[in-house]
């Protein structure tokens, strides 16, 4: 306990962190806490996924309008939720980086981005595969899919920024600013895309409003959402652990190069 709060006070200029966060601020502490927890999380994830898949594929009835393709919704909707949740998490991490200088905030933000991008990708692909039997084409520029596509582009942009700036802490702060700017813009983009979509609504009978959610699939939907969330948390913590190790490797290699240069 004293070790944690000592480190906390040693970080000059930070705001007061709650006790639990300051304990986690030490990367070694974080690793020690996460290591035993990961297998349990992985197990819980597997269980939830099995439950969700069972519900979605076997138990849930067919939709009277969409038929069996409604089963794709159990993937499409939870992945959309996760993609937005991930950006929210990255925004909180960004605040941690910029405002509180929390040492693990950089790591959390960097680790989350590829996972969020992957869920966004799943959302796009499942949406497209749902659309083909429903609308006849693999892609429609409806409001929901278009917004998710823009979100996907923003994820790729953040990842590109992480990879272009070499110094990790520099990259962290740049990515944090971009994440927050993106978070502010996301409602504006969503509003604009919705508006744009109603403007260009084709005068056809078929409503291109995107998939609707019927009560019959709510159960598998929620179970899959929980499963995806557990999957995200497991992957995220593991990725954070990897990132911490990666930074150690980098530090050690720099030290090694330095001593070699001195000799």
């Amino acid at each position, binding site marked *: 306990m004293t070790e944690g709060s000592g480190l906390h006070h040693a970080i000059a200029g930070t705001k007061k962190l709650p006790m639990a966060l300051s304990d986690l601020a030490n990367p*070694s502490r974080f*690793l*020690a806490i996460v290591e035993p927890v990961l297998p349990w999380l992985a197990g819980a994830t597997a269980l939830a996924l099995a439950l969700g898949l069972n519900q979605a*594929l*076997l138990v849930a009835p*067919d939709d009277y309008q969409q*038929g*069996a*393709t409604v*089963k*794709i919704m159990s*993937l*499409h909707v939870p*992945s959309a939720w996760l993609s937005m949740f991930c950006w929210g998490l990255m925004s909180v991490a960004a605040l941690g980086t910029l405002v509180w200088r929390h040492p693990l905030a950089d790591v959390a933000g960097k680790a989350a981005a*590829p*996972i969020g991008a*992957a869920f966004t*990708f*799943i959302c796009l*692909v*499942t949406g497209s*595969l*749902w659309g*083909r*039997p429903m609308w006849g084409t693999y892609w429609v520029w409806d409001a929901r899919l278009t917004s998710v596509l823009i979100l996907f582009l923003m994820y790729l942009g953040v990842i590109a920024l992480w990879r272009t700036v070499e110094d990790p802490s520099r990259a962290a702060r740049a990515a944090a600013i971009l994440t927050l700017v993106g978070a502010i813009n996301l409602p504006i983009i969503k509003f604009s895309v919705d508006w744009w979509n109603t403007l260009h609504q084709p005068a056809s009978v078929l409503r291109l409003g995107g998939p609707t959610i019927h009560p019959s699939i709510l159960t598998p939907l929620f179970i899959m959402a929980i499963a995806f969330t557990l*999957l995200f948390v497991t*992957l995220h913590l*593991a*990725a954070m*652990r*990897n990132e911490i*190790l*990666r930074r*150690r*490797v980098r*530090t*050690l*290699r720099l*030290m*090694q190069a330095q*001593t070699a240069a001195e000799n």
Partner: protein
Amino acid sequence: MNLGPHAGFILAAYAAAAVVVGALIAWVVLDFRAQTRALAELEARGVTRRSERANPNSP
């Protein structure tokens, strides 16, 4: 399990999701192995962190 006339799309959707999730898991696992391997290699060469040198029993 009758998936109706559009079974191909349903299976493709689940397969795509499985592939992406599998890729994520593979990335996490392989990256972990690469980093621990690099750390072990560096330790074998005698390069250690200050805190480990000070306290060899810390995690």
